């Protein structure tokens, strides 16, 4: 994972704007819980091979969650709307957005990626590549490589497919490696790795601070 701290920071950066007038400390706490919760599959990894980045790190969770929120808030007897009103509805949608982009999205592009449509297909996928405009080659993108095998004539598509739950293990502090090595275990809790992760950590904090220092909206000042 890009570290949990980075997930949280990006989630806050998104939540500050998207919560809008429902922005408050409790809503932020919910967002934080939502963005950290998928890491619990690291614990599931102790009993199920390759569970981390699989069980809760699948886009299926986003699709199901979005469906449930849509259905729940649009029926007559909506519990969420009845109990929490517009606040609850907004928070639920922000949670789905943040889970999808700040957590799954960033993990998709990191290390072995995520098991993207598990349990439908057991296949880790990593988003890797670049996109540029070249004066000699035109538009070049390397995220999805489509090639035709010269011998068989078959088309192959490489979108960064990796292994399956059987042979993919993404290291976590809970389970640093699949087959324990002799000697002391090094459990690592990364806070930030690489300039960009520290950058987002600081930018998330900046957004929270900025929001706190801001004056009240126009209506009251004019």
């Amino acid at each position, binding site marked *: 994972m890009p570290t949990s701290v980075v997930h949280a920071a990006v989630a806050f950066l998104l939540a500050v704007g998207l919560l*809008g007038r429902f922005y408050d400390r409790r809503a932020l706490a919910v967002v934080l819980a939502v963005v950290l919760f998928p890491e619990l599959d690291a614990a599931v990894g102790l009993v199920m091979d390759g569970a981390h980045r699989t069980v809760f790190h699948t886009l299926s969770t986003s699709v199901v969650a979005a469906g449930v929120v849509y259905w729940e808030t649009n029926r007559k007897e909506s519990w969420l709307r009845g109990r929490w009103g517009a606040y609850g509805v907004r928070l639920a949608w922000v949670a789905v957005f943040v889970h999808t982009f700040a957590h799954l999205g960033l993990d998709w592009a990191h290390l072995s990626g995520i098991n993207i449509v598990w349990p439908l297909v057991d296949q880790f996928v990593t988003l890797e590549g670049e996109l540029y405009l070249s004066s000699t080659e035109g538009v070049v993108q390397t995220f999805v490589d489509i090639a035709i095998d010269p011998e068989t004539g078959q088309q192959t598509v490489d979108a960064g497919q990796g292994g399956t739950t059987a042979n993919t293990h993404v290291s976590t502090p809970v389970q640093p490696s699949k087959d324990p090595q002799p000697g002391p275990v090094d459990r690592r809790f990364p806070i930030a790795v*690489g*300039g960009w992760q520290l950058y987002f950590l600081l930018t998330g904090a*900046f957004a929270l601070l900025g929001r706190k220092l801001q*004056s009240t909206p126009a209506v009251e000042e004019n």
Partner: protein
Amino acid sequence: MPPTLLTVAVGVLVGIALLGAAFDRRSLAVVGIAAAVPDVDAALTALGVGAANATLHAVWIPLAAAGLLYYDTDHRDRSWLRHRYGWYGVRVAWVAIATYAVAGIGVDLFSTESVALFYPLSDRYYAIIGKFVLSTQEGVVQTYIEIGNGWEVASPGTIESYHVDSWWHPENGERRLQLVESGWQAIIVVTAIAAIPAKLLVQRGDR
């Protein structure tokens, strides 16, 4: 280098977070442009002015802008900006300056491409890169800032010795306009694109 597209995407995210009641298409455009402006210094080098990631990436520019804005809105009897554009204008101006610094300069500073942050007082490029990890075996591992004789961050060189690749100054004849360099950058760009309609919906709901 972190592409300008990424800078603008981060700028859009910061704008969505901080514009608040001043959020609309126009203010978002202003903020997005503010994020992109620093990268113009690469184009200026083609005219022989300054250096890439230096001239407009210097910390003095947002500092001076913030100072001017503060003076205008807090120390003058009649603020020009507030008189002309009201609360909206003041908010957009502050967010644009913040975006210039955070997205326009910050994204490059925290990458290997690096930024001559104190240009023209200093010609040195700085890059804040490294890692910060807590390990049960090695304790706290922190390599962003070397704390020895004073504080030091990584530096690829000075204006004389270090060259920033860009469309304007290609390294080997091939001009290349980088749009996205890696997976996480693609995710940030897509996130920003998705956040705009989301914020427009939110804005409608908040009225």
